[in-house]
């Protein structure tokens, strides 16, 4: 256990208070931007709104997972245990949206 604790500590000392503070600030700014875009009628009704909100959401998600959950610095096994199921879950979600007609691909011509 002590060996494990040391291994974990070694992996987690890469992140310091300054990084945590910056990560919190970036997350806060992204959240403010998301809500601000929601209240911009011209943008909220444009075709760019949904992709922009999704991209911001994905960035926020990735930042928390990489820095707060330490996956950027942690062991590959942990990364595999999280990224593997997450990828399959997202693939199933997208497949279901296609299956139930929520998403569609319009062939040109």
């Amino acid at each position, binding site marked *: *256990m*002590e*060996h*494990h*604790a040391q*291994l*974990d*500590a070694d992996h*987690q*000392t890469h*992140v310091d*208070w300054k990084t*945590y*503070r910056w*990560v*919190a600030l970036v*997350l*806060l700014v992204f*959240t403010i931007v*998301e*809500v601000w*875009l*929601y*209240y911009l009628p011209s943008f*909220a009704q444009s075709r760019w*709104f*949904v992709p922009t*909100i*999704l991209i*911001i*959401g994905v960035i*926020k*998600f990735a930042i*928390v*997972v990489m820095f*707060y*959950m330490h996956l950027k610095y942690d*062991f590959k*096994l*942990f990364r595999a*245990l*999280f990224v*593997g*199921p*997450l990828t*399959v*879950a*997202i693939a*199933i*979600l997208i497949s*279901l*949206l296609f299956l*139930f007609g*929520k998403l569609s691909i319009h062939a040109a011509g």
Partner: protein
Amino acid sequence: MATAALAHAPAHKHHTSTGLDSTKIAIWAFIGSECFFFASLISTYLIYKGRSLVGPFPHEAWTNPATGEVMKPILNIPVTSFSAFVLLMSSLTMVLAHSAVLRGDRKFSKIWLLSTAALGATFLGMQAFEFTSFVHEGLTISTNLFGSTFFVLTGFHGAHVAAGVLWLVTLFFIDNKRGLGPRDAINVDVCALYWHFVDVVWIAIFALVYLIK
């Protein structure tokens, strides 16, 4: 002396074939399974989105059949944005709690653990306020497809937050009683991983349910 030694003794000293702590492997496997759980709830919400026959609706105005009154969309974005902010800040206090435990700083480990639990409880209070106001406006779990999928998705997320708050309060009491040191860091780390996962799920819910019309 013996009691003190026992109190700080490793919780489970064992060899693993990976060289990694089994508890941490287990929490990552659990989080992986939770990805499927929340993906199923989110996909159900998205599939039924816009298919409700009667109001209230999340983003569209609707007419109350009983009074004929035109009602506003039901989602309260300012309140939920503040909830999202509270949960994001709780992730910051959680990493600070973990960092304090790694340093063996008992004073700040207690402060940050309690702050995280308090922020989690604030989030739950705001969710209770949201649910109550929805019920007063006529949206229950059985009103329409939006109500069913919305309450199930956000309710399960809220239940996860509640479990996290209980876990944090337990760690706080242990810290208060005997102190959490670097040897206990793995136990706080496991709780932190769960807490951050609950936060990332909210990031997804906030974008997909509340912001995207």
